């Protein structure tokens, strides 16, 4: 009995990790064989970024059960802080330790933001919480567009005013022009490693005392309190850890761009919503599902390239149809009844 309980969760985790490793191996082999054109090759790092973001958001939405619409904001913080670090240390450090530390910086700074934002946000409920996360995400994006950081002599100055920034000797973060010339350190392998570590961290958390506390809060806050679980502590834990992972994804993202600008298309609420789409389509709460949905939804527009201008329209239609087929009670029952691969649920008296 006890053994079965342990191995069931372990098996499931193993399947998720195996899936990522196999995907990585398949892509690497395909690349060696010259099967991946430059366009698809350019998608590999963003693919890892989006999959990691899906893992991060799934921790908040699926496992903690709170709706966040501002996760692109954490990614933005991670991206800018990591890129800033790389720019400052570029002359004095080698690629490997520098990039490693940059990712760490991105994760830690985003984690601090997650913690600080979490204090007020996690007091709210439901849709109110969702809109406040959206608000924080937009504020971060907005401030990044007016933030100037530069060097004056050997010291670093910052300003929210472009005219004051005129006096700086060398700009590092240049307001609406963002950061240019971040070293291109991101590779598919690094992306794969970040994704893999994120997945392992989240899965290990879920199958632990703290993870169960988080899920208990999701399922029934009042009952969780009644058995002595400190709700705020575990909400903060999930939210902060999620921000750390998003920050690492952002760091990866930043080192894949010629110029890092906080545009709405990259870090706006639309992006946060896209991550949410991954989580929901992947089956809320399933880390593996989130990753699969992130990969499929990122590739669909590429696969649909042959239909030209209609591709985004078709993409939207696919999304709506997928949601209805997956969630409509009648279609669900139909799939359940006609799926030969799925074992029938045990009848409940």
């Amino acid at each position, binding site marked *: 009995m006890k053994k079965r309980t342990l191995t069931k969760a372990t098996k499931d985790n193993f399947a998720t990790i195996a899936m990522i490793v196999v995907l990585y191996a398949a892509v690497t082999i395909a690349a060696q064989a010259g099967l991946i054109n430059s366009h698809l090759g350019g998608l590999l790092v963003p693919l890892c970024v989006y999959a990691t973001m899906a893992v991060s958001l799934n921790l908040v*939405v699926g496992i903690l059960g709170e*709706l966040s619409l501002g996760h692109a904001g954490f990614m933005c913080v991670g991206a800018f802080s990591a890129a800033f670090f790389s720019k400052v240390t570029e002359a004095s450090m080698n690629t490997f330790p520098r990039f490693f530390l940059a990712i760490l910086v991105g994760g830690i700074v985003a984690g601090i933001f997650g913690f600080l934002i979490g204090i*007020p946000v996690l*007091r*709210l*409920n439901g*849709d*109110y919480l*969702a*809109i*406040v996360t*959206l*608000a*924080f995400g*937009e*504020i971060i994006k*907005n*401030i990044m*567009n*007016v933030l100037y950081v530069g060097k004056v002599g050997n010291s670093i100055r910052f300003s*929210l005013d472009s005219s004051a920034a005129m006096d700086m000797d060398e700009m590092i973060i240049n307001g*609406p022009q963002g950061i240019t010339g971040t070293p291109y350190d991101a590779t598919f392998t690094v992306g794969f490693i970040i994704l893999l570590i994120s997945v392992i961290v989240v899965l290990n958390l879920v199958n632990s005392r703290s993870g169960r506390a988080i899920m208990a809060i999701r399922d029934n806050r*009042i009952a969780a309190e009644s058995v002595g679980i400190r709700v705020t502590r575990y909400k903060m834990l999930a939210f902060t850890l999620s921000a750390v992972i998003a920050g690492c994804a952002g760091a990866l993202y930043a080192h894949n761009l010629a110029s890092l600008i906080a545009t709405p298309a990259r870090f706006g*609420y*639309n992006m946060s*919503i896209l991550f*949410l*789409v991954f989580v*929901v*389509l992947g089956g*809320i709460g399933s880390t593996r599902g989130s990753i699969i949905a992130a990969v499929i939804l990122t590739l669909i527009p590429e696969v649909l390239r042959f239909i030209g*201008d*209609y591709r*985004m*329209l078709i*993409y*939207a*239609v696919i*999304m*709506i149809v997928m*949601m*209805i087929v*997956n*969630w*409509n*009670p009648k*279609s669900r029952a139909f799939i359940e009844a006609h799926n030969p691969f799925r074992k029938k649920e045990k009848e409940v008296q």
Partner: protein
Amino acid sequence: MVSFITNLINGLSLGSIYAIIAIGYTMVYGIAKMLNFAHGDIIMVGAYIAFTVITTLSLPVGLGILFAVGGCLLFGIAIEKIAYKPLRKAGSPLAVLITAIGVSYFLENMALLIFGSDPKIFSSVVPFQTVAAGPFVIPGTTLISIVVSLILVTALQLFINKTKPGQAMLAVSQDRDAASLMGISVNGTISLTFAIGSAMAGVAGVLLCSAYPSLSPYTGAMPGIKAFVAAVLGGIGSIPGAMIGGLVLGIIEILARTYISSQLSDAIVFSVLIIVLLVKPTGLMGKVIQEKV
């Protein structure tokens, strides 16, 4: 002082437009219990219809407005029937939310295919000229926005409180099952809500593009989000709340843009929302519902 009052009036005008959109958001939330993220894009649909009828087909302005409102109304009903209704019993508000996002993508990309990505110059449809009263110079669109929103809100309040379908909407918003047992058609009421909310979004689209005459497939997205913020600020589900939330938001946005920083105005608007929710976690007019143990 004069410029401050002028700015206040401009803020009131933008706020009125937000209020009209926010009321649509709030009604749909209150009755269908869903966040209709595609609501902002209905604004864009309305503006494009008006643009096509008035500028491309050179038909009278009145006809353009009529088509815009009617078109949005039909779009609203159709979207609800095709995309949202199949998920009403799914038991997951997130599923409907994602579908709404799909609808939003769909509308934006449809507009992109039909009209292209380059912004269209939307010539104002408001027939009034700039009004000069003493030291104040107020554009006609500003006054019209305020007047139209006042008329719409009053009419809506009368409709909800004095008519049978309006009362049915109230009943469905409070308890869908009980309303259904009382013989109220829940499907019909939800359709009606989408129809009214979308028609109002159509009006908002025409007003918005008259005041800010550049029209693109993404025109509705940001005002839609702002209106959502306004609805939450006022207490989501409450129509007077949406009205107040919209006005407050519009005024703050214009004042912040003029006196603090035009680049940070959005950040300031969102900060106000956060501060209000921290003090009143269910918005200005929202009711506190405590979970029964």
